[in-house]
């Protein structure tokens, strides 16, 4: 067999981490007994790409001042964030078994007190403004750290995002990237049935962002867009990542029923078996 190219080897490693993010997300959600399955699984590949290919971090020194910043604005995806932080070495993977536990720093939503978490989120429509503040903080202190904010699609129904969308362009924050986890489903149904977002890319372009659309489950596309940041000089970058809610668990894909649902022993075993088959 011919030796794999370096790129393929890198992508394989990232795919492996992504699979592990899914496994670990299920582990945390199973420990909790219930949780936001769909939005954790849709973001798993993106998070693996970010934490194992893009973000400059020192897991042993989480407060390192020149670190890149990542804000999970869609805070309900915390199972996946906790998973990737554990995998990156911010804390032991065994802590995932403490998801929702008494006095745990791993609750349904990220807590700034937890190692590696840059901001407490969960109230929707907050992350992009916070990211602007971080990006401005870098500029004002002549630091070259980069800020990435992951926004949920349903979350874009909150008007505060559009205040921030305006401001990031006005301030020419090319050190800021927003990634939309566009899984097309929110708590009560499909987004286009609830409060549609389309034409989404055109909206952001009209606001003045540099926009690129990718398949948010294709690691090659994820890596390529991250390597291309900033997409244009003097503009903030927006990546619209088309994803599938509940990706990797056939029974949970593309349905609002798995936005937040019980994770029984039976569900957990089924989910792990499906992931095993994909590995």
């Amino acid at each position, binding site marked *: 067999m011919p030796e794999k190219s370096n790129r393929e080897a890198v992508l394989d490693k990232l795919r492996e981490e992504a699979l592990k993010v899914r496994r670990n997300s299920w582990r945390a959600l199973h420990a909790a007994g219930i949780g936001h399955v769909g939005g954790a699984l849709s973001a798993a590949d993106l998070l693996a790409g970010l934490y194992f290919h893009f973000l400059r971090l020192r897991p042993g020194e989480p407060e390192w001042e020149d670190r890149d910043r990542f804000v999970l604005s869609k805070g309900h995806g915390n199972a996946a964030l906790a998973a990737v932080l554990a995998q990156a070495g911010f804390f032991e993977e065994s802590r995932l078994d403490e998801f929702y536990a008494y006095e745990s720093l791993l609750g349904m939503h990220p807590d700034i007190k937890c190692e590696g978490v840059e901001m407490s989120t969960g109230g929707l429509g907050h992350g992009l*403004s*916070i990211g602007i503040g971080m990006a401005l903080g870098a500029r004002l202190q002549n*630091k070259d750290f980069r800020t990435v904010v992951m926004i949920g699609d349903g979350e874009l129904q909150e008007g505060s995002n559009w205040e921030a969308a305006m401001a990031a362009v006005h301030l020419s924050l090319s050190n800021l990237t927003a990634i939309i986890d566009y899984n097309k489903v929110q708590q009560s149904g499909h987004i286009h049935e609830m409060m549609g977002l389309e034409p989404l890319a055109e909206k952001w372009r009209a606001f003045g962002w540099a926009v690129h659309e990718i398949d948010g489950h294709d690691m090659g596309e994820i890596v390529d867009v991250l390597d291309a940041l900033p997409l244009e000089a003097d503009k903030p970058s927006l990546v619209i990542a088309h994803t599938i809610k509940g990706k990797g668990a056939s029974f949970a894909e593309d349905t609002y029923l798995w936005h937040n649902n019980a994770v029984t022993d039976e569900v957990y075993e089924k989910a792990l078996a499906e992931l095993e088959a994909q590995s």
Partner: protein
Amino acid sequence: MSASANGNVDVPEWVSLAANQSRLSFGLAVTELAQRDDSVVAIGSDTLDLIGLRTLQKEHPDRVVDVGIAEQNAMGIASGLATTGMHPYLCGYAPFITARSMEQLRNDVAYANQRVVIGGACSGISLAVSGGTHHAVEDIALMRSLPNMTVVVVADAHQGWHATLATQDYDGPVYLRLGGRAVETPVTPIDANFEIGKADVMRAGKDVTVIACGCLVPEAMSAAETLEADGVDVRVINMHTIKPLDRDAVLAAAAETGGIVTAEEHHLTGGLGGAVAELLAEEHPTRMRFVGMPDEYAIVGPTGQVRDRYGMSARHIVDACRSLR
């Protein structure tokens, strides 16, 4: 401030520039702090002139970021900046910078415990002619209900300056409640000491105590003079910090005088009066009267007249004190 050759004390420049407006002395103090400390940055919400940030903008254009009429965004940006080690001073209209951005305030600033100073100008019914949409008579209650939040109500422009400077090395988020456009009667000395959390006893007295904040402090002083003529000895406390409340000052007043009147330009629900009553109910039950805005929305009119209509003038404090005798 320095003594001049003839022995008089020179009046510092900020005093005249502030023109007895605490919103301006706040802006001047932020400008001063920005010159002292590279981490200070002012975030505006279409408030450059309201707060008086043109000089800072001219001298350090990068240190003034006015994001336009978008308080939610301004609050989130301030929080994000604070996480990077900057010390943001957020400038807004009190009614909008508190209520409009309340969730960002709670989650991004208070819950995340970020070092953000929020200056809320035009509080109370200082903008009485603007109508109820522009009145802030619930902001103390909102801010006081947030863990980690420090709440300061300045009595005049002088205190606005000193209170703002006092935030330089203060930890955690702070809400500074400022006046706006309406006349502010100077009542504190230009060179007064200011310590967050330490009330100022403006007038000693043993018969009854008035605990006031903001623009009701000069009204309380005026009421005390009226009562003095009747032989009533009134203690007046400027409770500029609502949270953390100066418990010692309140408990001493309860123990040493015959009753307590609170006075504030704020709804009677949840403000200074509530804070004092909560403490006394547990620690030292005391006869009290409350001067403040009743449970309704104010009419339009000149600020002084509207304040008087709703019971927030010196004469109402006089009546309240007498009713405790």
